[in-house]
């Protein structure tokens, strides 16, 4: 049974008077615990696929199934709840909240959602605190917990973003070109950190990149070009 099932997904955008075919019948499956990379040149449709998996965009045709849930059948409220409980996000611009400290940024996803049926609101305060401190330690920012994003380097900010994405213990973490705004050394460290989290916590990571060198660390590689899958393989199968 697949964690993510993409079935003949199309996505068309209107651009002025023309229609851009961003995805043209893309199908693939992702297994639980995989470290998946979606690679391809700029404009190939990587971010569109991640947006579909992240349920922040809807397909023009086809079906996106997350944990056996057909996302096209869900209301906006249910989709938001699905995102909250099942998915974590890492962006190339980090997108941290500037007025919150490192600790508070990581805690922030736990505050979201409805109070009535929100599992994170039921967490005992001490357990929540221990979990956030554990994540801070895992990304190596123990000494920066009370700092604000403006006081951190790009690499440190992306570490905070990784910890934040894991705060709700999601099944899937999506990272849209997480190393694009970092130098190569820091970028490698971030990929390494995500891999460690994937192995330590068992969380499925799906990230996009146009850096061919990153492909070596992935379990599963999906290559995309002009909105279509060019190659789709598990590294173990190639070896």
């Amino acid at each position, binding site marked *: 049974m697949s964690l993510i099932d993409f079935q003949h997904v199309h996505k068309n955008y209107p651009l002025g008077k023309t229609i851009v075919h961003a995805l043209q019948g893309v199908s693939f499956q992702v297994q639980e615990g995989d470290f998946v990379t979606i690679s391809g040149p700029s404009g190939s449709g990587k971010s569109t696929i991640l947006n579909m998996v992240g349920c922040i965009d809807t397909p023009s045709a086809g079906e996106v199934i997350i944990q056996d849930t057909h996302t096209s059948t869900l209301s906006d*409220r249910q989709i938001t709840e699905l995102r*909250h409980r099942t998915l974590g996000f890492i962006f190339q611009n980090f997108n941290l909240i500037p007025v919150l400290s490192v600790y508070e940024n990581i805690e922030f996803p736990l505050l*979201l*959602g409805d109070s009535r049926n929100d599992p994170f609101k039921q967490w005992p305060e001490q357990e929540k605190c221990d979990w956030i401190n554990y994540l801070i330690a895992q990304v190596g920012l123990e000494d920066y917990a009370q700092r604000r994003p403006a006081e951190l380097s790009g690499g440190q900010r992306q570490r905070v973003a990784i910890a934040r994405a894991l705060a709700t213990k999601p099944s899937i973490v999506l990272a849209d070109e997480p190393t694009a705004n970092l130098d190569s050394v820091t970028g490698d460290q971030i990929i390494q950190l995500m891999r460690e989290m994937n192995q330590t916590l068992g969380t499925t990571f799906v990230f996009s990149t146009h850096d061919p060198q990153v492909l070596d660390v992935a379990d599963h590689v999906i290559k995309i070009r002009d909105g279509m899958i060019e190659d789709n393989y598990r590294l173990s199968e190639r070896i």
Partner: protein
Amino acid sequence: MTWFKLAFRNVFRQKKRSFLLASAIAFGMLSITLLNALTGAMATAVKTNFSTAIGGHVYITGEVISPRGYSTSLIDQTATLDQVIRSLPVPIMQVKPRSNAQVQLVNGSAVTRTRVSGIKLENEPTSFTKLRVMQGDMRALQQPGNIAIPLNRAKDLNVRLGDKVLVKGATNTGQQNLLEWTIVALFADQSSFGRSNSYASIVTVNNLLNIPADQYQQVNLVLQDLNHMATATAELNLALTREASIKPQDDDGLVGPMRRMMGSNRTLVENPWQGTQFEVTNLDDVTENVMAIVRGLDWVAKLIFVIMLVITLVGISNSYRMVLLERVAEIGNMRAMGAQANNVFRLFIYEAVILGMIGIALGLILALAGVATIESLNFADSRGPARMFTVAGHLPLMISMGSVLVSSALIMVMAMLAAYFPARGAARLDPAEALRSAT
């Protein structure tokens, strides 16, 4: 960490912008609080000054018909009136029987006009406590033939304490009368109109008016609570209609005490009546015209406040539209992480509430400082009708808790309304679009 705390930090994200918005709200709060305090002070001063000038809150006057068929100002059914007053259901502090006369005081070739209030000193022991007696003793008025006059009148007449003056006036039936009275006290003219009454005992004035010593022209009631004024007036009207007779409404526009001040106290009667015909009026009737002006000013103040509110509302709304544009990526990020649309909506509304609270607090502090400054100004030396709005030279400003609460609630609603549409726009942002716009 709560949404309110996040909103609080967001307010201080752009300190200058938030300061300007809070200042606009504070200015609105300051203006309306000061204007309310000012119109309230004017109303209080007008009522206090009229109450002091006339000597009470509820006024009962009476008219009887003279042998020649003219109505004259007199209450001869004093026993009936005493009984009616005693049975009133509201607490009364003082009952002041009075007779008044417009007279000329003459000393050699010097002449001055004054209104002499004839009072029963034993009935109103506190009436002169606020009077600044410069020379003599007001208690000497208990002796017949004595008078207390304002110091400026004494200067006009070139008389001193203990001097005698000729008093020229008319009796209650219109005959000329000339008496000699002794000046036993001189006091500072503190009236807002610059024309304080002179005082004598009721027996002295009755002697001039040629009416019996135990009768009088009017009774002023000082109530314990001004809110009982309407009840007392209505009850008196009812009781006097039952026990005696009440003067029918006429259309001269003057209420009892004012008519007598204007000197129109004798008219030929076409339909005569028996005994005393009573008329009951109160402070509200006397001050009606001035209070209409004060109320008009109050409405103008409220209109200015509403216009300012609308301008501020537009300003805040535009600022929040800018905030929304600045935070598109952040909102998209929050929505992607699982924030429901109502979370985002509430965040913006909370920010407006915090901004409103800061503005209101700032405005209130400035208003308190403004009130303290204005209260410290002394207008005692100023002349003219503006003095009517001061009490003992000061504007009696008071910030009413009720009006502060209403203004604060209005401002808060306005701030939330200003943020409502930008907040709704933020809540409706498509996360994919928002995140795309950020990259």
